[in-house]
């Protein structure tokens, strides 16, 4: 029986992970901003045999993070697994015209994760066990003209997680930075993505569960994104600046 905290539990990737974890027996503390969607996810996991508690919360309300972590620990007791999954895909063009929007999107994808992990790290460190998965993105590996607001927020998350992992490792807590490439979820609906590169949430969830079990530090999912990104980050800037990827 695992005690699992999922932040952004209405995400398609998170839901696919949760279903996998159900199979070994699980208790879930689910956090999301839509009560209706949260209830649907909770019903599905309950039908699969899990015990579920839901908490409706907009994660951009940073002031609530301290009590969120406190209440999650109170309900779960020991916390074996944490998955931080919430995120948005900002409209890059709109963010270029509206700094307030840009900051709000940066908060959704970057600051809210950093705030939450700051509150979470201390009790996890004190607990001395457990595995944390944080969904960043391959987009954080290099800012690209088509989505650099999103990319910069994910980049901040990746860097933050790199440091936090090394700190928590000493306490016996694992942290996996998860970098998905293209995944077929509501977030990417309607985007003209190249079909052969697009994974299903189930494939990504299988990779995540395996990597977290193995205590892996950084996960590229599907695996080939490691090599795609290796090429992208090595394109010299004088060429890169002419591209529009």
């Amino acid at each position, binding site marked *: 029986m695992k005690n699992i905290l999922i932040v952004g539990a209405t995400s398609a990737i998170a839901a696919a992970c949760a279903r996998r974890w159900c199979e070994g027996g699980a208790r879930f503390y689910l956090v999301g901003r839509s009560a209706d*969607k949260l209830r*649907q996810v909770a*019903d*599905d996991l309950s039908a*699969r045999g899990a015990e579920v508690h839901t908490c409706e919360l907009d994660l951009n309300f940073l002031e609530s993070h301290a009590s969120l972590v406190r209440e999650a620990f109170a309900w779960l007791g020991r916390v074996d697994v944490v998955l931080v999954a919430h995120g948005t895909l900002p409209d890059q063009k709109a963010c270029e015209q509206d700094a307030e929007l840009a900051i709000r999107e940066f908060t959704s994808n970057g600051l809210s994760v950093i705030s939450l992990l700051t509150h979470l790290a201390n009790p996890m460190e004190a607990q001395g066990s457990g595995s944390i998965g944080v969904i960043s993105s391959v987009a954080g590996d290099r800012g690209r003209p088509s989505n650099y607001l999103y990319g910069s927020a994910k980049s901040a998350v990746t860097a933050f997680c790199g440091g936090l992992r090394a700190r928590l490792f000493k306490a016996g807590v694992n942290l996996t930075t998860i970098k998905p490439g293209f995944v077929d979820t*509501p977030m*990417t*609906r309607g985007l003209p*993505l190249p079909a052969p590169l*697009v994974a299903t949430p189930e494939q990504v969830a299988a990779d995540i569960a395996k990597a977290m079990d193995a205590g892996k530090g950084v996960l590229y999912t599907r695996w080939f994104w490691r090599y795609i990104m290796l090429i992208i980050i090595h394109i010299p800037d004088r060429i890169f600046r002419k591209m529009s990827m």
Partner: protein
Amino acid sequence: MSIGKLSSWGRYPRFPQTGHGIGWRSELPGELARVSAEHGTLLPFGNGRSYGDSCLATSDQVLHLRPLDRFISTDWQTGIIRAEAGVTLDEVLRLAIPRGWFLSVTPGTKFATLGGAVANDVHGKNHHVRGSFGCHVRRFGLVRSDRGRLEVAPGDADGLFAATIGGLGLTGIIDWVELQLMPIKSSLVDVVNIRFDSLDEFFALSRELDGQHEYAVAWIDCAARGASAGRGIYMVGDHAPEGGLAYDDKPKLSVPLVPPISAINSVSLRVFNHFYYNAAKPGRHPGRVGYEPYFYPLDRILHWNRIYGPKGFQQYQCVIPESAGGAAIGDMLDAIAAAHSGSFLAVLKRFGDVASPGLLSFPEAGATLALDFPEHGDATAKLFANLDAIVRAAGGRIYPAKDAHMGGEFFRACYPQWTQLEALRDPALCSRFWKRVTQA
């Protein structure tokens, strides 16, 4: 969601569908309105396990329901479950089997969705005992472009329950289904395989034994000619009284690519049928097998439809009323032999007389024959015209879920209730099948 194009299982006719993925029930009214405003009409699409063009939209724009795959509630005391329309039969079995429940009716693929199973009112090897899938549907949610969200139960005043079961996805988008499961003591199946040498022998076996067993079906060697014609294997089965309740999760084989030409030809057909027939020894042979190989032998090879090559294939499934007897089935086998054609798998079963709640449901008391043919243009069309003539003369009809060829006049003659379905059709929904059989 739904990256890439969607197609029907037969991959014929070839009309790639653009899928608009549905992730949440709450999105349905909006997506229905948006896509129909942009493209005129559209169609719900489950998991594309229909063979012909009944799952293809006239506009080639479909709402893809497969991602809508959550359970809503489960009661393991009564075996009543409620789940979203995109949940597959396999996903139901994963939860139900360990708790001692099974689908009351299952088709030969576990990859059909609940929505698709309702819309085609699918049948299984136990039709003679339990009727069609629709007999076990307690209620469902329906979203229509003109009336919004409805909850529909048997006997509703509008007749939408009957029209939606076997309603080919035309009466609205089913968003959830409440289903009655059937209790089992074991996930194993006790089977008896009996070789027969003629169709008369099959009908005699079926009359003698169907009533004593939950499941009954026969495989016909349709490559056999002359004295061997009409030979096959009659197979009955029952859920075993003990042996454990195990969901089968074996890794699958897959056909990764469409080969440039069909791997199914007269040689491979004859070889397969010969070995299949001879694998069963004469006499009655009991055995015990897992539910997977018993119900879903073809599902073990993912994308097996690709072996028919780029042209795809067609399935021909008809039912011949009990009164017309076995003669028409014999005539059909003769017509196939005369055309030097043959089917990889030929399945023969006698439906029982359990009435289906559906308005346009396919099953009726009589013998049903299902055959797969690689698509060969005119040759296939000619053979199908001959088969149609036999079916018509015998007062039979064709299964829309498998159809890509039936003429409009033939359809309207066998399914006169079609006008009632047309009256209840959601104006925003239309399939290539429906257009073909009602307007041509």
